[in-house]
C-alpha cells in the first residue's frame, strides 16, 4: 500500500525512535510485562506502523463493502442502510411463559426472535423421557410437539419476524413444526425467514447435543439444506457455529478456522448431494463469539470474511457473490462473564457489542449480566438489549463502514489470523478433511490445549481477570435470580400422556412408518417430517425413528 521510498523513510524514522526516545524511556522504566499477548495468546508488538502491513494490497486484500473479498463487509451500505438484527436468545419453562417473554422483547424494539430450547428437546427426547428428569424447561423452552410450538408463536406473525432456532441434530423436526404453523397462519413458505442452527459437527466437537453418528447426522443436515433451497428460499438452512468452539476454550483464530473447516465440510456434502454451489451457498450463515479484546475480535471477523470468500470462489468455484459472503450472527462471550461482581459484565458486553459493530455482523445477541448465575431476569435482558441499542445509536460505530480498516494493528492482526486459518485448513485437509480431523480428535485437542493454557495463565496470575484474580472483593450472595419452576416437568409429562392418547392414532402411526421407511432410503426426509409433526408425532418419537434407522453416536473423548 506504500511505495518503497515511503517505507524506507518510515523505517529510518522508526529506527531513530527505537534507539532514541524509546530506548531512553525503557532504560528509565521498563514496561509492565516482558510480553504482551491478546486473550488468545497472540503476541502484540509495542507499536504497529506501515512497515507491518507493507504487503497489503488495498484492492486485492480489502476492496469495497459488498464486493469480493468482502473484508470490509458484506453489504455496500452496512449499518447506514439498517442496523444489525437485534436478536436476543430466550426461552425457559413452558411455551406460554416464553411466548410472553418474546412479546415483551418485540415491544422493546427487538427485531428478531431466537429460540432457546430445553436440553431434552435439543437431544431429541420428550419431556417425560427418563433422561429428561430434572431438565424440563431449565435452560430453554420445553417443546414436545406442534401444539407447543403453536403456543410459542401465539400472536406473533411469522411473516413479520424472523426466527432463529438453536436446534441441531433434530433441526428438521423443529423447522417442520415452524413451517406447519406458518401454513396455519396463512403465511406461505417463501415469506418465512429465519435460521436454524443445524450444525451437527460442532455438537460433536464441543457442544454435546449430538444424537446420530456423523455420516447419518450429516445426511439430515443436508436434507434440510436441500429442502429449504427448494421450498423455503429465505430460510438460512444452517448457522455454522464458532460460538461454542470459542466458549469451550479456543482462541479467536481457532474459532474462525474450525468454523470455516466445518463450513467446508457442509459445502462439500451439499455438492456431493448434487446441488450446485450457488444454489445453496447464499443461505449458509455463520455464528460467532465476541470477546472483550475489541481489536482482536474485529480482526477475526475481517479475516474470516476474506478467507471464506476465497474458499468459496477458489475451492468451490462459486460464481454468485452472495455465495462468498460470510454472513453471521454474533453472541457476546458467555464464558467471559463472571459470577463475581456481576454488574461488571455489563461493561464486558458493551465492549463486545462494540467489537461486533466494528466487525460488521448481521445480527447480535447481547448476554445479560446475570447469566453466569442463572437464566437472565427480565431486567438484565432489558439492559442487554439497551446495550446494543446504545452501541447502534450512540457510539458512532455504525456511521461509517469498517471504521478500523487501515489501522496498522488491525490490518496486521487480520493478516495474521487469516494465515492461522489457512494453516489449520491445510492441516485438516491433509488429515482427510474435517470429519477425519474430528474423528482423530485433532480439533478437540487443539481447543482443549488452548483452554488449558488460558486456565494456567489465570491461575498463575499471568493474565488478569477482573473480579477473578484481581480487584476481588467480598460480596453478599446475589439476590433476585430467575428460578424456573421445577413443576414444569410434571405438568409436561401429564400433558404429553393426554396428547398422545387424544391424537388420531392411525394417522400418527402411518406418518411415522412412512418416515421410517424413507429414512432408510436416500430420499429427502423433510417432507415426511412435516407430515409427521402435523400428525402430532412428538420430537422424541421422530428422533426415535431415526435412532432405530441410524443408530446413536458414542462420542470419543479426547482430553
Amino acid at each position, binding site marked *: 500500500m506504500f511505495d518503497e521510498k515511503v517505507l524506507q523513510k518510515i523505517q529510518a524514522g522508526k529506527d531513530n525512535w527505537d534507539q532514541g526516545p524509546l530506548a531512553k524511556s525503557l532504560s528509565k522504566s521498563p514496561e509492565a510485562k516482558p510480553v504482551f499477548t491478546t486473550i488468545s495468546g497472540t503476541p502484540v508488538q509495542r507499536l504497529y506502523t506501515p512497515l507491518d502491513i507493507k504487503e497489503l494490497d488495498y484492492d486485492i486484500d480489502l476492496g469495497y463493502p459488498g464486493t469480493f473479498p468482502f473484508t470490509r463487509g458484506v453489504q455496500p451500505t452496512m449499518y447506514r442502510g439498517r442496523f444489525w438484527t437485534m436478536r436476543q436468545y430466550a426461552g425457559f419453562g413452558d411455551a406460554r411463559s416464553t411466548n410472553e417473554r418474546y412479546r415483551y422483547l418485540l415491544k422493546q424494539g427487538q427485531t428478531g426472535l431466537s429460540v432457546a430450547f430445553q436440553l431434552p428437546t435439543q437431544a431429541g427426547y420428550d419431556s417425560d423421557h427418563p433422561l429428561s428428569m430434572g431438565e424440563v424447561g431449565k435452560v430453554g423452552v420445553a417443546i414436545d410437539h406442534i401444539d407447543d410450538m403453536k403456543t410459542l408463536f401465539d400472536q406473533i406473525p411469522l411473516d413479520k419476524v424472523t426466527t432463529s432456532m438453536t436446534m441441531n441434530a433434530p433441526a428438521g423436526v423443529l423447522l417442520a413444526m415452524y413451517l406447519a404453523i406458518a401454513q396455519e397462519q396463512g403465511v406461505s413458505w417463501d415469506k418465512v425467514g429465519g435460521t436454524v442452527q443445524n450444525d451437527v459437527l460442532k455438537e460433536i466437537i464441543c457442544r454435546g447435543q449430538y444424537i446420530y453418528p456423523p*455420516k447419518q447426522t450429516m445426511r439430515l443436515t443436508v436434507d434440510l439444506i436441500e429442502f429449504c433451497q427448494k421450498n423455503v428460499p429465505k430460510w438460512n438452512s444452517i448457522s455454522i457455529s464458532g460460538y461454542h468452539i470459542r466458549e469451550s476454550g479456543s482462541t479467536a483464530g481457532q474459532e474462525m478456522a474450525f468454523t470455516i473447516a466445518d463450513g467446508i465440510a457442509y459445502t462439500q456434502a451439499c455438492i456431493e448431494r448434487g446441488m450446485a454451489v450457488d444454489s445453496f451457498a447464499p443461505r449458509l450463515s455463520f455464528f460467532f463469539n465476541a470477546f472483550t479484546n475489541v481489536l482482536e475480535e474485529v480482526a477475526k471477523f475481517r479475516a474470516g470474511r476474506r478467507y471464506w470468500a476465497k474458499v468459496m470462489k477458489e475451492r468451490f468455484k462459486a460464481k454468485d457473490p452472495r455465495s462468498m459472503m460470510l454472513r453471521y450472527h454474533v453472541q457476546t462471550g458467555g464464558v467471559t462473564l463472571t459470577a463475581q461482581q456481576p454488574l461488571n459484565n455489563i461493561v464486558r458486553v458493551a465492549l463486545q457489542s462494540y467489537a461486533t459493530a466494528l466487525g460488521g455482523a448481521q445480527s447480535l445477541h447481547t448476554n445479560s449480566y446475570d447469566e453466569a448465575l442463572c437464566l437472565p431476569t427480565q431486567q438484565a435482558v432489558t439492559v442487554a438489549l439497551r446495550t446494543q441499542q446504545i452501541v447502534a445509536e450512540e457510539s458512532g460505530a455504525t456511521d461509517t463502514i469498517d471504521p478500523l480498516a487501515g489501522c496498522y494493528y488491525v490490518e496486521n492482526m487480520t493478516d495474521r489470523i487469516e494465515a492461522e486459518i489457512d494453516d489449520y485448513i491445510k492441516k485438516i485437509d491433509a488429515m482427510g478433511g474435517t470429519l477425519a480431523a474430528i474423528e*482423530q480428535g485433532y480439533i478437540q485437542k487443539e481447543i482443549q490445549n488452548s483452554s488449558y493454557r488460558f486456565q494456567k495463565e489465570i491461575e498463575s496470575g499471568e493474565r488478569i481477570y477482573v473480579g477473578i484474580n484481581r480487584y476481588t472483593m467480598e460480596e453478599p450472595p446475589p439476590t433476585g435470580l430467575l428460578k424456573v419452576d421445577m413443576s414444569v416437568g410434571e405438568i409436561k409429562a401429564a400433558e404429553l400422556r393426554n396428547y398422545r392418547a387424544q391424537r388420531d392414532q392411525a394417522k400418527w402411526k402411518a406418518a411415522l412408518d412412512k418416515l421410517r421407511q424413507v429414512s432408510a432410503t436416500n430420499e429427502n426426509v423433510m417432507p415426511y417430517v412435516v407430515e409427521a409433526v402435523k400428525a402430532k408425532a412428538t420430537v422424541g418419537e421422530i428422533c426415535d425413528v431415526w435412532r432405530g434407522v441410524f443408530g446413536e453416536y458414542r462420542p470419543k473423548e479426547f482430553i
Partner: protein
Amino acid sequence: MSIDYAAQILAGSHRAAARLISWLEDEDERAYGLMAGLYPHTGSAYVVGITGSPGAGKSTLTDKLARVIRKNGLKVGIIAVDPSSPFTGGALLGDRVRMNELTQDPDIFIRSMATRGFLGGMAKSTAEVVKVLDALGKDVIIIETVGVGQDEVDIIGIADTTCVVLVPGLGDAIQSMKAGIMEIADVFAVNKADKQGADQLCGEICARLEIDSHIKERDWTAPVNRTIAVEDIGIEELWLSIESHRKYLFDSGRFYTNRRERTSRETLRMIHAELFRVIREQLEKNGRLDAAVEELMNKKRDPYTLMREIVNEWLSISRHKETS
C-alpha cells in the same frame, strides 16, 4: 469387622472385585492371600485381547463386541488400559465414555487401568485382574490394550484370542508389520471399513498372510473381518471369527498347550518378581547396594563378578537351609 472378599467375589460382588483389583494395582499385601483363595476358581473365562493403533476404534469395537457377547447370554468383563504419564504418574482414563451404556448391565464389569509405567500395552497387574474377573464369574474377558502402536505384543501372553484392529488410511498395515503386530493376530478387524482404502488394506493383510503361510506352515489363518464399529456393522461376524478361533484352539489341543505355557510363564514371572523384590529390599536396607554402586563407579569392582557374588550368596543360604 473383616469382610470376606474372596467369598463375595465368588458370589459375584462387583464391589469386592473392584477393591481387590485396586490392591493388585497397588501391590498391596492384602491382595495375595485373596488371590490364593480365588485361584482354584479361575481358568474358565475366555480371554480376548483387542489391540491396534490409536484411533483405530478399539473402545467402540469393544463396546459393540460386548453387546454381541451379552446377546449370546455370556457375562463380560472388560479391562481397558490407558497410559500413565511418565512425568506426573497420573492418568486420564477415557475408554468408559464409549461403553457408557454397558455400565447399567449387572453382568458386565468394566475396569479402567493405568499402565503405571509398565510397557507392553498393559498394566503390570492386568494378568491378575483377569483372574479376578474370571473368579467373579465373567465368561468372556476383553482386554483393550493401550494402543500406542508399538511393542504391544505382550497381549498374546494373556489372551486366548488376540484381535488386531486396523483402519484404512493410517498406513496401518505397513506400520503394524514393522511393529510385529501382524504376527500376533488370531483375528483381524479392519474397522471403519466404509473408508477409502479399506479394500486395499484387506488386500495387503491377505497378501501378507499368504506370504507368511509359505514361510511357516500354520494350521490357523487369521480371518480378516470388515467392521464399522460406530454403526454396529460386522460385529456379529467378528464374534463368530473369535468363536471359530476358540473352537480351533480346543479341537487342536492348542488351548491346553497355550494355557500350560501361560501358567509356566506366569509362575516364572512371579518367582522372578518376588526374588527380585526380596533381594532388592535387602540390598537397599543393609546399605550394600549403595556401597557396591560406589565401588562400581570408582571402577574398584565390576558388576559381572558382583552380580554372581550376590546371587551365589542367596543360593548358598537356601542350600544351607535345605540341608540343615
